[in-house]
């Protein structure tokens, strides 16, 4: 009998608790103070994309007080991580560290990519630089190209993953110069850097920020942007037209942005965009971008959608020509 009375007391207590708790959690707030917001970075840790989003996550955490957690999900260029976001819930608690790699992976048919994602904010532009190790014989881009043409397939040109933006740039470059390079994908920027430094791969396409970190060991041959670098230490690097190839245009850089799954509420997107805005303009993030040679191109929501359309237009012809375009709408 005693036991039964204990049970009854417990059950009554329980019902009370349930009521209290239910009453307490009625107002749905975004972001819930207990939930974490996950940032999926589709590249391996340590590369430039990863570092940018880690830094941004810290600033977003600081300005909002919400927990932002970075997870690296690599594979198939950047498609595996992108699919993770697409397969998740559209509740605003997960967003993709997106950018040119997303555009490239989508067009290659590796993921539904930007067709299933919504724009939140664009962050920065990072121009690509073609570089070799300092003890290699080529001192200018012209010398390198001549050499590659004289013995096709012998000179290896590495990129940080075929699905990513360096992949598209390397394919574009190879097309422009008669497919004379052996284009090889590596597992992210860090892997590519150590392979070029170790002499396992002859030429690499790097982000400007990656070249700066190793500028003693790399000889930059050309910057793939319209203008020369904004950084004092790299402003002597010629752009393609100064290097003697004014007719060639290659999407020579990567930009990073934030995207969420289609169907995420407007309020959530707005909150994320505002938080990203604050984090982006914080002193720390600005300093970080300046140090690593990232060019700020901040825009949110609709503005960004228009900007993104120009990137998409740049990519299509190259991938189509290379036979990699497999997007089915």
């Amino acid at each position, binding site marked *: 009998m005693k036991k039964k009375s204990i*049970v009854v007391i*417990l059950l009554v207590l*329980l019902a009370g608790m349930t009521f209290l708790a239910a009453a*307490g959690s009625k107002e749905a707030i975004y972001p819930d103070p207990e939930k974490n917001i996950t940032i999926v970075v589709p590249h391996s840790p340590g590369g430039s994309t990863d570092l940018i989003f880690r830094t941004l996550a810290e600033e977003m955490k600081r300005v909002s007080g919400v927990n932002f957690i970075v997870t690296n999900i690599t594979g198939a260029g950047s498609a595996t991580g992108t699919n993770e976001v697409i397969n998740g819930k559209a509740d605003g608690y997960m967003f993709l560290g997106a950018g040119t790699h997303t555009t490239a992976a989508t067009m290659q048919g590796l993921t539904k990519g930007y067709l299933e994602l919504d724009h939140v904010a664009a962050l920065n532009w990072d121009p690509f630089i073609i570089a070799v190790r300092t003890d290699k014989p080529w001192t200018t881009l012209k010398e390198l190209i001549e050499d590659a043409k004289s013995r096709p397939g012998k000179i290896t040109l590495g990129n940080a993953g075929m699905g990513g933006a360096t*992949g598209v740039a390397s394919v574009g470059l190879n097309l422009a110069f008669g497919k004379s390079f052996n284009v090889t994908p590596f597992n992210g920027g860090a892997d590519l850097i150590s392979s070029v430094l170790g002499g396992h791969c002859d030429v690499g396409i790097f982000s400007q920020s990656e070249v700066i970190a190793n500028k003693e060991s790399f000889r930059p041959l050309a910057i793939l942007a319209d203008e020369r670098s904004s950084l004092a230490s790299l402003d002597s690097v010629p752009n393609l037209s100064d290097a003697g190839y004014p007719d060639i245009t290659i999407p020579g850089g990567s930009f990073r942005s934030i995207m969420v799954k289609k169907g995420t509420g407007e309020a959530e997107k707005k909150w994320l965009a505002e938080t990203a805005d604050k984090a982006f303009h914080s002193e720390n993030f600005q300093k970080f971008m300046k140090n690593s040679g990232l060019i700020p191109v901040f825009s949110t929501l609709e503005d960004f959608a228009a900007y993104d359309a120009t990137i998409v237009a740049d990519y299509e012809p190259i991938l189509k020509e290379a036979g990699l375009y497999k997007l089915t709408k």
Partner: protein
Amino acid sequence: MFKKHKPVPLAFMIMSLLYFFYVVSLGSSKMIGDELGGDPGGMVLPLFLSIFMFLASTYLMITDTRTSEEKVEKFGPDERRLFALTFLMAITYVLAMRMIGFVLSTVILSFSLTFFYLRGTVRKRDLKAWALGSLISTALLLALYSLARVLTRFLLIGGRTGSVPPWMGTNGFVIGASLLLVSILYLPVAILGWKKVKTLSLGSSARDAFVSLLVSVATTELLYLFFRQLFLVELVRGLVAW
């Protein structure tokens, strides 16, 4: 047939054959942008593996037979029941977790396994004690959990809106406070209950049920506090939606 031969090599023979056909049917995929060639393709290694595994398992099928000292001991009837119980409950746990949530499924799994392991077998006459025990554990756990949740939300939201000092809204403080609250509520129940069970001399099944109750409630609540609140793992809520 498994008296002398072992089932494992046979399973591997079948598996490697299936794998071989699967790999062949999949075909070789080339690296993207491999215009000049050079990529060995995605089929080489899996094909090699499947052939190697088939050969190795065939060899082992023939040579690796049971020696006299290696005989598989027979299950006792009690062990067989416990084994089956564990197996079934583990599968149910994985399948039902999403629907009924971490808290409920874990406390029931923990209580049931501990209870039947303590009893040493699964018997019909223990079922009543089991059912009652599961119910009470669940109720006790839900009470503790809900109180801790109310406190947690109050502090976290209060810390942000300013109704309590901000330091009280930090994660570290909230965990400490929840842990304290839960212990204050749990310990008297445990001590008083233990005394009651002892004095009432309810027989061994009630005592085992009580021990299982204490263990399962403490395990579940502590796992929740550590994994969810300290290390921010998003545990499924399920039926316990608050």
